[in-house]
């Protein structure tokens, strides 16, 4: 039986009822349980890994954009002379970077959901007590993080285009 409220008020009420409870516990008891504490630390560790993975992905994106900018700075400079506008140039790179990030985040989220499903039943810190672990997919968080990552990717892409426009094309042409 689940009850919401102060344990001090609920326990006497339960004792006086005809239910005759033989074991009463509270959320603070559960949280103090060693197995639950270990599981919580594991999840915190996984969160730190996820943040590190995100930072690594951002670094990879920056390196990708830098490599792309280096390899295509002459092509970009020539395209600008052919009529490619500054906005169009920045928008193209922003869309490319944004698409890369959006697809990567989307695929990552999908893989996370698919791999969590078969694993969730095996990570119950208190297997003797109900309820069984419940899978809750944080759709809103997933959508928000995808949107935020895509926006960050687009911003970085646009910034890369601006920096590329300022790079020394003559130097690139000279070492051709």
């Amino acid at each position, binding site marked *: 039986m689940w009850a919401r409220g102060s344990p001090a008020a609920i326990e006497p009420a339960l004792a006086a009822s005809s239910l005759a409870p033989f074991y009463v516990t509270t959320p603070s008891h559960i949280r103090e349980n060693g197995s639950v504490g270990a599981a919580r630390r594991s999840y915190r560790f996984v969160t730190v890994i996820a943040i590190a993975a995100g930072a690594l992905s951002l670094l990879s994106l920056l390196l990708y954009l830098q490599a792309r900018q280096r390899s295509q700075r*002459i092509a970009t400079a*020539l395209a600008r*002379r*052919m*009529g490619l506008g500054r906005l169009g140039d920045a928008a193209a790179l922003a869309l490319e970077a944004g698409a890369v990030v959006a697809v990567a985040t989307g695929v990552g989220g999908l893989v996370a959901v698919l791999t969590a499903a078969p694993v969730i039943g095996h990570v119950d810190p208190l297997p003797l007590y109900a309820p069984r672990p419940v899978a809750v997919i944080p759709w809103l968080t997933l959508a928000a993080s995808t949107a935020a990552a895509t926006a960050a990717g687009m911003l970085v892409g646009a910034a890369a285009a601006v920096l590329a426009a300022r790079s020394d094309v003559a130097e690139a*042409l000279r070492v051709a």
Partner: protein
Amino acid sequence: MPETAVVTCRGVSKTYVAAAGSVEALHAVELAVEAGTIAALVGRSGSGKSTLLRLIASLDEPDAGRIAVLGTDVAALRGRALRRYRRTSAAYVAQRAAASLVPHLTVREQLGAGNAETAAGLGLASRLDARAEQLSGGEQARAALAVALARDTPVLLLDEPTAELDRAAATLVIGALATAAAEGRTVVLTTHDEDLLELASTTIDLAPGAEAPEGVHRRATVTGPALLEVRRLSKAYRGRFVVEDASVRLGRGELGVVLGRSGSGKSTLLMAIGRFLRPDAGSVAIAGAETQAVPPWHTLAYLAQRFALLPELSVRENVALPLRLSGERDDARVTALLDQLALGELADRKPAEISIGQQQRAALARALAPRPAVLVADEPTSHQDRASAALVWDALSAAADDGTACLVATHEEAAAAHAGRVWRIVDGRVTPDS
């Protein structure tokens, strides 16, 4: 096939499969190269010369046939054996020499201890402490060859080793290769260079029958208002003049050539004309107007030594790009240019799926597409065989007939025969050729 051959190819075929269709780069090629000799692979641009060299270097695998180097079937090599083969048996230098060098290491670092003399013999004594990315194209070509020679492998595989070199630098390379062969090393190279071909003991034509057209039509000098006028232009780097007091004048429909050695200041002059760099003194006027602004493509089109085709677009889309970006559409013009430069069959391929020579012609077609007032071309035939170079000169002549003022910088003396005006550039000083 002689049993003493160091490099043998038997029935080697290679077909590239791309989204636009498959291309048979090589068909049943037979080849045997003896120890201590130089074999030259020749043929028109796109005939598979570079492909064969890459197969021998084991950078790619043949679809059929067998390639043996020093008795080893190179296609069967894997892992450590493959790395050992590339490191100790066959040194390969790519057509884009920069690809064979580590950009942020100096020439001396890449040569290794005790090998500085190899580079000095190729005219790089003063550039030993320069990083590869700081070298000019010609210097990179010689540095890459020096590194390959320093590795002391019994086999050298060189893709167009003199393509970007003037005669003096090419002579140094030819001398170094003659010495290498005399020392017993086997050299397989691709080339269009007549002097290098003379040195080769074997010549293998991968596309027999493709002869260069006879005769050259020299353009007349045109008098009239100048479309391109360069007045007393100077540019210095670190206090040293790379271009000094240069004046060049071209009218509508004129084709001019600036002749000069590698490092003489040709590219710097062209970059200043194209507003890729700001000159220290002097002016550039296009169609009578002096401007500091970057000229649009239809006013001044530029063919650089690095072609900078967009890799995601097909050859046709690349050529049509200047028209598309300026809101025009002229499919007939694009098709005509592609056909004129023998690129019609390759129109739907991506730049990475065609040879460097073909990429260079595609870049020229892209430059010419919007009928620019002025075309500036830096070494437009550096990666072309004789027949393809003739196509390039024909395209430039046709552009001039169309009214474009074409200025070409090159180290090839033969280019003077095509031009109405010729200048020579020596240590940055430009003088009209008598």
